[in-house]
């Protein structure tokens, strides 16, 4: 019973914050609502026995990526009222219709998994198991992600560098 209560509370917060991210006209508020959304998703990950992934979600998404977003918003001063861009009024209803259609298509596939039984294994979510799997079975994808991150860092430095320098 407690699990369901936690799920419905988190789902409620996640849905309302996600709607808020899109509906808010102020980028700073969007970013803050998205942080809240990520935190509730982390709680949901904990209920799915994924404690390591959940805490990494908080560290990477809430702690680093969203701080970077806020940093850029403030650096470019996009949060002030005069800097806000007008919405695309015409595209708006079309976009919502498309989104609803996408949602229906996705949910229509949910009945395929109705009979699935949860098999909670606590050790699947520990750092030890995940680390072992990552450095043995998934070591090649790990290397690719590492190269991608390095390239991304170098690329962003090149992009942000002033031309005159």
């Amino acid at each position, binding site marked *: 019973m407690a699990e369901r209560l936690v799920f419905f509370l988190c789902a409620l917060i996640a849905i309302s914050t996600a709607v808020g991210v899109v509906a808010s006209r102020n980028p700073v508020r969007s970013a803050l609502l998205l942080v809240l959304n990520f935190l509730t998703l982390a709680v949901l990950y904990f209920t799915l026995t994924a*404690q390591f992934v959940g*805490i990494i979600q908080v560290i990477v998404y809430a*702690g*680093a990526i969203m701080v970077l977003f*806020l940093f850029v918003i*403030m650096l470019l001063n996009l*949060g002030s009222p005069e800097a806000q861009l007008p919405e695309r009024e015409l595209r708006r209803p079309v976009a919502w219709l498309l989104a609803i259609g996408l949602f229906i298509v996705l949910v229509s596939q949910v009945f395929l998994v109705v009979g699935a039984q949860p098999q909670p294994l606590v050790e699947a979510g*520990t750092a030890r198991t995940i680390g072992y799997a990552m450095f043995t079975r998934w070591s090649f994808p790990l290397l690719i992600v590492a190269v991608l991150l390095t390239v991304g860092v170098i690329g962003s430095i090149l992009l942000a560098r002033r031309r005159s320098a």
Partner: protein
Amino acid sequence: MTLGELGWALVRVAIVLGFLLGALPLVIWFERRALAWFQNRIGPNRLGPFGLFQPIADAVKLFFKEEIVPANADRLIWALAPALSLFPALVAAATIPWGPNRLLTPVADVEIGILYFLAMSSLAAYGVLLAGWSSNNKYSLLGGLRASAQVISYELGMGLALATAILASGSLRMTEMVAVQAEPLWGTVPFLPNWLIFTPWGLVGAALFFVCMLAETNRAPFDLPEAESELVAGYQTEYSSMKFAAFFMGEYMAVLTISGIMVTCFLGGYLAPINWSPLQSLAETVGGVFVPLATLTAALAPPFWFLLKLGFLVFMFVWVRATLLRLRYDQLMNLGWRVLIPVGLVNLALLAVYLLYGWLAALVGYGLAIGLYALWAVGRSRPVERRRVILYAKAHPYIPRQTRASEGQNAYVAQEVLHG
């Protein structure tokens, strides 16, 4: 979860929160007094014994101050920011063990204890960042931007420093990290505990962690986000009354929590520095009145040692603040990215060498690393340009008129005769 477990959990929460809130005025008083001694002043000494009640008086004063909201501030976020800076400081201490009794401490002995701390400390950036942005003040905004860049940069160094602790103890669980440090030193010396700081990688890691900890809590010499002399207190400029007090409390609680993490990871947590208690051995040999005394001290010793180490680290905070000047922004970034992160990576690699190939290979590795650095530094250094700088005072010594006159009546007379 049964009702009894819930009750014990509430007791644990109450202990941690009670300690954090109760130690807060003490730490503030201690910082002011110690800083005053460093600067050859007296410090607050009027209210109560040794001025101990001064923080309480300050709190009362802050509570009764008028609250001023700047024009065009984003009201909601402006009110949210102090709470956001207080929240992580309050909850981050949940995984720190204060003693061996698992019923009383820590609040949650989870598998990912130290990552939980990293997550909560990374959330601390939001309070400063949003306070700076929502105040609608350029100084505040500059403070907020500095704070976010600083916290992101030093998070990496802190993560590397903690990674050495994780790798050395083989666990993310903080109680296990303490248990590993309870073993005899280097596996051989029986009386001394195996604190991580007594190993080369632990020493480097602790030094890294200490620097990063100063930066993460926005304390001097890394207090650029508030820099009262250039940014007029930065993100705090527009805050007054209770909201200012919330930032103040958040900062000191973060100092306490992060010191607790350093004590647990590098300084042996609640363990005594020597595995030998004279009272205990007296009780074993003599017995009698020493037995209850020994049990009492055995029960009180772990929190005592923990608090002693915590107090020492808080003193280090004040010491550094009284000694070092604030860094310039580019110096801060250079230190974070070009010094701390490479050192942390090399240290981590050498710890891995130790774990795989033994201590001899690791020591050779440390020797190689230091030697290569020395070679690089020597090759890079230019001969010092020597220039004679004569102080003005040396070139033009000041000779008081009175001594000239008092050299003798004759000289005075002679002067008068010469100049008419």
